[in-house]
């Protein structure tokens, strides 16, 4: 997988997740970041750090991204959320504007 088509998401506890760019664009916030004018040194490297999101949540979020993509392409399945994660997941979603 080419570097250009992927983005690395880093959680608060320094877990790294490598995701497709398409998937990551589901998040408005991340999209804004990556398309801001001026160009980041870092966007060229494609890394984003989330100091307030834990790895568990971030992982779930990545899964959500992919599910959202699939859903928009017609595959209508269900996205299950474990109840104990719900609150944090929602807050993260709010933060990421997803």
């Amino acid at each position, binding site marked *: 997988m080419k570097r250009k088509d992927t983005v690395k998401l880093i959680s608060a506890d320094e877990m790294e997740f490598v995701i497709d760019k398409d998937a990551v664009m589901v998040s408005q916030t991340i999209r804004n970041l990556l398309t*801001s004018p001026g160009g*980041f040194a870092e*966007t060229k490297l494609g890394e984003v750090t989330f100091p307030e999101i834990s790895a568990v949540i971030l992982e779930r979020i990545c899964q959500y991204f992919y599910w959202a993509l699939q859903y928009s392409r017609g595959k209508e399945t269900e996205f299950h959320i474990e109840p104990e994660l719900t609150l944090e997941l929602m807050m993260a979603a709010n933060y990421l*504007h997803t």
Partner: protein
Amino acid sequence: MERKTIELDQGWDYMHKGIKKLRRILEGLPEPPFTSEEYMMLYTTIYNMCTQKPPYDYSQQLYDKYREAFEEYITSTVLPSLREKHDEFMLRELVKRWGNHKVMVRWLSRFFHYLDRYFIARRSLPALNEVGLTCFRDLVYQEVCAKVKDAVIALIDKEREGDQIDRALLKNVLDIFVEIGMGQMDRYENDFEEDLLQDTSAYYSRKASSWIEEDSCPEYMLKSEECLRKERERVSHYLHSSSETKLLEKVQHELLVTYANRLLEKEHSGCRALLRDDKVEDLSRMYRLYCKIPRGLEPVANVFKQHVTAEGTALVQQAEDAASNAPGVQEQVLIRKIIKLHDKYMAYVTDCFQNHTLFHKALKEAFEVFCNKTVTGSSSAELLATFCDNILKKGGSEKLSDEAIEETLEKVVKLLAYISDKDLFAEFYRKKLARRLLFDRSANDDHERSILTKLKQQCGGQFTSKMEGMVTDLTLARENQASFEDYLRSNSAAHPGIDLTVTVLTTGFWPSYKSFDLNLPAEMVKCVEVFKGFYETKTKHRKLTWIYSLGTCQINGKFDQKSIELIVSTYQAAVLLLFNSSDRLSYSEIMAQLNLNHDDLVRLLHSLSCAKYKILSKEPNTKTISQSDYFEFNSKFTDKLRRIKVWDSFSAVFFLMLFSLLVVCIYWDEKDLNFVNLSLC
């Protein structure tokens, strides 16, 4: 996950650092670009400050601070830099600052994005983007827009005078006007366009007033066309497209509308002169320029109409004057010339004037004026009919190829449209057609039918129904004659001894012919009876009336020197045949035998004894016929030809009502009509 509450000052302090960094980047100072971490931190700070529980929910304050950030930057940095510059430099600075501002808005609204999601909607406040633009508009734009506008217009005028200007710069500046309207064009229109239009009007008004004095009409038009082209180009390069119609309208008004009359009426180069000199290109230009102006073409069409009328009338006058020298010929020449005139100006209408209805109308009206004038006593209807006759008859004055004939006939029919008394034309045409058909003078059947088709298309079936009937009659007559000949072959007893050709015509189709009865010689009487017998076998319930005035006979005259074939009318034949039984007859004897009236008899005898060919000799040998004259067969008569035609001055045009259903014209053919000393061959 626990979050520390962020105090406003603390949070803002952090944000402020980010804003300062952004400002430095915009000013072009050496500053490393934002990292994604920095970005996220800034975003997160805002996010947290907005999602904290009250009283730490700082959305409102942050919203205000956002605006203040712009205001502060503008007042401290942007405005001063603009104020110290002028004209083109100011424009450049403005464009740069605007660009920067847009970038700043984008960045800050990304950072503050969370506000956009919930806060503004809840409080029905303008979005961050709008806030940013509004700051620029209220603080910067308001102050400089008048100066900017003046600078722009000055540059435009400079370009109009021929200088090169920075078109890209102007485009950028004008884009600001458009964008600052935030969806509405009102800023562009009120703050810029209005003055532009005024300035344009003034500029072109000045130009026009000097050009109209110095330049000829074509030159002026060329310049106008060029100006319009340049202005159009100007719009496409840097003005907003919505300005195009308004701008061009102003230019057109100043250059073309204000001076329309002066331009067209210019003495040696105006519309009239252009038409006179056949300046097709200039006329096309005139059309192009004026067709976009409402009612702009009317004066041009008027001049066109007057010109064509004048030319046509001149032709008619020419023909009138020349007719005294060479009667008969001039009329044909006139029609030809009128056709040419029509072709020429129709081409103008289709090419120069792009087939515009106004010009079609002008042409039509012009032709209607002079096409209905009489020339040397003949109406145009008659002239046209004579013209057709010349083309269609054998040995006519026009020797043309088939296509040329077709073309000419088409044009003639078109001319007919302009003649008001078309019925008159129909009458003249019918009479001439009858003559052509009956005396076999028609050159080509196809052409005859072709023109009838064209006339039918133009004037309707009613117009041509009789004429078509006439042509059909002839065809039927030929078939009839064939069956007559068969009939004679099978009934040899009925044969009259003379070859007889009969043409049967339908009354109503043909013009009326007068024919008075005369006492036919015995030989002819027999012929009539035989044909009647034949005809009754074919159709009953029809009455035949014989028109002797249209008949011809071929008589073999055995003169002393040699035999000569004489082609004479039926009446003349009747007179001559009398001399088969008597050598010498007096006027009164002839009259009694034939039962004619004086006028006709005098004419007849004149044609045989006092005209070119003296078949009969007259006593006394005077030039006129008197009732006491005596006539004898002139055996001494001779001529170098073997076959001569003796003209009879009967004309075939009389107006009488005929009751019969059919009218028959007799065409006697040759062989053995006796004429003194003639033996039966």
